[in-house]
């Protein structure tokens, strides 16, 4: 078949214009980029609106019935984490409530609790919580242990007073060392601060990869400026257009969206923008490559969708990298999400200086090189068949 009479390569501006046109007339790509990014920015954080579960319903099985045990019940109820909704007389009743999902856990105050406490015997409080849901379980135990701890402290002070120690000293001596836990970087331990800064980076990556793939996939099997202008030029101009759009979308995320969800990035704007460059470039190259290898453009979306869960869980912000097989850790560094999310979290949530983020930055540039070459090779292979040199 005769190719169209050798069209001269376009000038840079003409090529850029053609590319911008191709991007903005591609409905699916536009929908994915703008629609996707804005839709997710509201949908994804929705479950975590309340930041941390509080006032979980529990039951108390008080087998003692003394004033002190009722005091303990009140202390438990007073902790923010749990709320006593039921008082049961037997363990079996509490277990039945639990199975009916009326309560998430229970506290058992043993018989002779008060007497044993008075006699100076060590007594045991039993807590049970549903460990199927870890956040619920952690919160529950935290609340119950806190209440038990307060009572234990009171008891100790009381005993010391009875032994004739002065009040001030007794109050101080209830512990040998003072435990002072300081949550750092996310002082409220809120879920929003945990999820939003990390997952939003992944959303940027996934939607950009999809958009780049969809645009490339839409042009496959057809003739146009992408055939006559050399793989490298087309790829770079495409990257220029998409990266520019994504800089704007990133500003929306790191700026408006974070503040909207009460997440305050503490890194400097310059550092964030610098780190974004290789991140967005790599992602674009992966997208273009996917668009080239996928038989039809919809497969690009399918691949990206299937990859989200493994990508997000191999980053290490949910599950520590120390607990992952090293093969997974190495493999995850092939994709921009791992160094990207780690880098942005360090910069914006933990207040890292640039030298501390530099290794991630270097890895991202390494990926630019790797995916860029792969993309270039694939592009030439794909379009050389329909572009016989003459």
């Amino acid at each position, binding site marked *: 078949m005769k190719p169209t009479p050798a069209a001269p390569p376009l000038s840079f501006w003409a090529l850029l214009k053609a590319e911008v046109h191709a991007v903005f*007339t591609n*409905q*699916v790509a536009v*929908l994915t980029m703008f629609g996707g990014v804005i*839709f997710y920015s509201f*949908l994804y954080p*929705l479950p*975590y*609106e309340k930041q*941390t*579960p*509080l006032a979980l319903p529990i039951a108390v099985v008080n087998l003692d019935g003394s004033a002190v045990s009722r005091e303990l019940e009140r202390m438990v109820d007073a902790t923010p984490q749990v709320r006593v909704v039921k008082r049961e007389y037997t363990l079996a009743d509490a277990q039945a409530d639990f*199975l009916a999902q009326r309560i998430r856990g229970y506290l058992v105050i043993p018989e002779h609790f008060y007497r044993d406490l008075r006699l100076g015997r*060590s007594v*045991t*409080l*039993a807590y*049970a*919580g549903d*460990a199927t849901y*870890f*956040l619920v379980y952690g919160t529950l*135990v935290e609340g*119950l242990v806190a209440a*038990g701890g307060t009572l234990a402290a009171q*008891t*100790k002070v009381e005993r010391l007073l009875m032994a004739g120690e002065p009040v001030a000293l007794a109050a101080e*001596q209830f*512990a*040998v*060392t003072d435990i*002072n836990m300081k949550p*750092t970087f996310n002082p409220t*331990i809120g879920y929003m601060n*945990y999820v939003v800064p990390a997952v939003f980076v992944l959303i940027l990556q996934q939607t950009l990869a999809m958009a780049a793939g*969809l645009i490339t996939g*839409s*042009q*496959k*099997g*057809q*003739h146009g400026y992408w055939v006559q202008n050399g793989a490298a030029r087309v790829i770079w101009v495409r990257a220029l257009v998409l990266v520019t759009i994504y800089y704007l979308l990133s500003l929306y995320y790191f700026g408006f969206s974070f503040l909207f969800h009460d997440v305050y990035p503490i890194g400097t704007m310059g550092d964030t923008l610098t780190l974004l460059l290789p991140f967005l470039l790599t992602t674009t190259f992966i997208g273009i490559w996917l668009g080239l290898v996928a038989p*039809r453009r*919809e497969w690009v*979306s*399918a691949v990206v*969708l*299937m990859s989200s*869960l493994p990508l997000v*869980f191999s980053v*290490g912000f*949910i*599950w*520590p990298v120390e*607990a*992952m*097989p090293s093969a997974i850790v190495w493999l995850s560094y092939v994709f921009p999400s791992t160094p990207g999310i780690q880098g942005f979290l360090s910069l914006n949530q*933990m207040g*890292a200086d640039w030298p*501390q983020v530099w290794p991630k930055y270097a890895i991202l540039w390494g990926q630019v090189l790797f995916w860029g070459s792969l993309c270039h090779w694939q592009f030439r292979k794909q379009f050389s068949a329909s572009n016989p040199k003459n």
Partner: protein
Amino acid sequence: MFSQAWSLLKQDHWLLSFATWVPMLVALTLWWIFAQGTPRQLPVGVVDLSHSHSARTFMQTLQASPTLQLHRVYADATEAKTALVNGDIYAYSVIPSDFERGLLLGLPPRVSTFYNSQYILTGRLISSAVMAAQATFNAEVETLKTLMRGDQTAAGAVSLSVPIQTQVTALFNRNNNYAQFLVSAMVPALWQILMVVITIMVLSTYVRQQGLQAWLKGHPVRALLSALWPFMLLFWLQGLAFLLWFYVGLGWPFHGDFTTLMVAQALTVVASTIMGVLFYFLTLDAAHSMSFAGAFTAPSFAFLGVTFPVSDMVGLAQFWRDLVPVTHYIGVQIDQANYGLSAWASLSPMWVMVGYAVPALVAFWLIKRHLKRQRQPNPTTGGEPDLSAVASPASATGVKL
């Protein structure tokens, strides 16, 4: 009918891969990430300003915790903070300079532990491990002190220093196995994505090969069903496969009834397929529908309520959650695996899934409309829908050799 589905799979290697080894590979990867079950030996640091014997005992107590590993002893807090930001350690405890003196004089020294709460799950693990280690240290020191006074027996000394002991029972996940907790929810979420994706791909292949008119004119529902049911059976078998993998292969505790779960899965398959059909006929373009499918299914894991309890989600989140088929399923899976609830008690909340009749009806109406539109004048070539004409790669004026 099977032969039709089979020939479809044979022609399209990508579809065949997505129906078989790709989901298996992704599910295995997910499991492999969490295979350790519980994180152990997480690196932490200590800033030792005391340099005393007691400080060393304290560090040994930290090191003794299976969750913690004393990575390094830092000279000052700045150095430790840098390590925390770098991710070398997840927490550091500061032992004050008057540590030993305070212990001897009965003036409790304050040990501050800074832990990385940006990583909530890891942070919580570390925080409770450090607290437990410090409580152990306290009890040991105090018991020793009481014993040295000489007026107590060993048991009496223990009860004096620890008047109230606590015994915490984790119901249903006794050894806090996170693999079981997270993977058993992730895989159904993945399954959901896969079902919607494959449904869209199958529909688009039929339309591409036969044309909408030729395929669906006459008896659209029958034609749709005969195209989709082999795949629905496949989805159902995939569901069964991951159940067998979890509860037989990996031996995760299971107290319920497989049949109940298979019924719940069948309902989920039907609902997910309906959503796939709806997305496809919204635009008649596979790429468009995939974007909708992505928006709909990709965040489902967050909405499952496994990591963050449903009862603490705001109304709008609960509403969105109710739209996603797999959220109705996950409750049954947890009920069956952990609580061994009766089939009736466990399945009855699923009755709300009759609501998926609405998207089914909408899809039916959309099909009718597309059929009618294409019969009108201005027929695009080969049943190509007008909406996707902008950038459709399929039968456009491609240069082919």
